[in-house]
């Protein structure tokens, strides 16, 4: 694994698109009735090609932020820009969902009625720029690249959950997105599968320059994957601590036992724990 990773040069600096600027965003649910503030004056800058890990207790409002970027939900005030262009903001509370920002969902959203190959080909088929043959060729190549050869004609229900997640990432990448939005995609996986998924995600990332906005409540996962670590307060969510993870990429699993990793973990776990305790005391619902 190590040798393999060294061969692939990190291309994160080459990414020119997908810089996200979140400016003073507020999200209040149900402004007429019992208003619940999910996001509280959140400001965050994500560079193009950066892996930005959002860590916070369950139900703190991280997903509201992700939904605002993806264009699934509106925001109450503030603005979100991508590469200088406003996605949502004053006069336009809800962004248009688009193929430049693809979400990888918590429980996966592969279409169970389509084979893995058809799933991967879905985005380009919708875009309609290439012929079906070209799309399938590209899809096969991308799947082979991610170690998914031989599963093309299986349905998602026929392969392991780990492989399913990988298919979903490949499906997302087929759209040439600028940003990948991950909503706790590995939450339901066991820790061994998860560690494999982390390395395979990095491997895919090193080959494809995209910005990654990754929500998790797992601190180790966040430090292992991220360039940037954003620790959120419990609801309403707001960045409490932002720090750059100075462990150089490419990384592999030996990072987990490195002294620097342990230091960062110690440095941050108290902050995270404190928020988790607050959230627990407030009785926040999972989700």
């Amino acid at each position, binding site marked *: 694994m190590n040798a393999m990773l060294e061969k692939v040069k990190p291309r994160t600096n080459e990414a020119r698109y997908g810089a996200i600027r979140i400016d003073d965003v507020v999200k209040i649910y149900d402004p007429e009735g019992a208003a619940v503030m999910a996001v509280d004056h959140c400001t965050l800058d994500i560079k193009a090609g950066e892996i930005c890990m959002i860590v916070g207790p369950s139900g703190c409002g991280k997903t509201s932020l992700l939904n605002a970027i993806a264009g699934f939900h509106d925001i109450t005030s503030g603005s979100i820009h991508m590469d200088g262009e406003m996605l949502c903001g004053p006069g336009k509370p809800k962004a248009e969902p688009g193929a430049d*920002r693809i979400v990888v969902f918590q429980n996966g959203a592969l279409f169970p009625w389509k084979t893995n190959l058809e799933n991967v080909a879905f*985005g380009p088929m919708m875009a309609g720029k290439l012929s079906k043959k070209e799309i399938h060729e590209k899809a096969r190549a991308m799947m082979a690249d991610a170690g998914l050869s031989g599963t093309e004609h299986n349905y998602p229900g026929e392969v392991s959950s780990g492989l399913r997640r990988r298919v979903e990432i490949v499906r997302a990448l087929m*759209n040439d997105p600028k940003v990948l939005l991950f909503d706790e995609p590995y939450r339901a996986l066991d820790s061994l599968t998860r560690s494999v998924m982390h390395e395979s995600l990095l491997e895919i990332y090193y080959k494809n320059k995209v910005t990654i906005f990754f929500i998790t409540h797992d601190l180790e996962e966040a430090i292992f994957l991220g360039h940037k670590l954003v620790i959120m307060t419990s609801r309403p969510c707001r960045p409490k601590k932002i720090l750059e993870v100075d462990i150089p990429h490419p990384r592999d699993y030996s990072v987990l036992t490195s002294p620097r990793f342990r230091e960062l973990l110690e440095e941050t776990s108290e902050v995270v724990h404190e928020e988790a305790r607050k959230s627990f005391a407030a009785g926040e619902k999972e989700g």
Partner: protein
Amino acid sequence: MAMNRITKIKRSIFSRSSLRAIIAIIVFLVLWECGSRSKEWLGHSLPWIGLVPPPSAVVLVWMDLLGDSGYWESWYLSTMRVMSGFVAAMIIGIPLGLMMAVSRTFNSITFPTFEILRPIPPLAWVPVAIIFWPTEELSIAFVTFLGAFFTVVINVLGGAKAIDMRFYQSAQAMGSSQWDIFRRVVLPATIPSIVVGSSVGMGITWNVVVAAEMISGGGGGTSGTGGGLGFFIWNSYVGGSYEQIVVGMISIGIAGYASSELLRGIGGFFTPWLKTR
């Protein structure tokens, strides 16, 4: 290959579960035979079962009926009535259910009416159906149609409404138009519910067709054994042939089982992704 298939078939016939099924049916028949003949054997007949003709007598009558064109006409008529009612229910019910699921406006217009009509048992429609439709054949088909229709609609509606939000969101993000989402998400995601709805609906159509035939007098029945399986049973009762009643009942059982199997096969063909679960 051929050998393989034969051994496979042999294995499935002589497998434990089919052996159990065969034994269970034999035991059932033996108990039935004993019960029916209790008068001869015990001197006094057992309650209920003592009045039922024994299976051996039923089989003899059945053998006779196999050469009777009227009996087969009954099969044909009932099957046609079930099929026409069922197919009409699918053709009208599936699009209606989908439209109710997709359009809130359409739903708010149609759903209350639908919900008032739905609890009315199909058999309560029989008099109206006889008045409404010019021929008895159409009346029976209409009542049969009602039996499947409401079940199909409510299943399609429920299935389409239960589709996970994530599927819409990711399809939308990947550039799907409203039509694409309907064709590539709503429709395939609803197929399993359509399959369930149709198999339940098929069961109801067999219930309904038999009763409708009994009430309406069997439509164009030409002979005592024609006019549909329901009418056949009724006529046998009136004519006092208890063996024929049982033949008619078992015939309906076989017909219902065969149509369920057929639907399972068709359903499996349309939902290949569910096979491996």
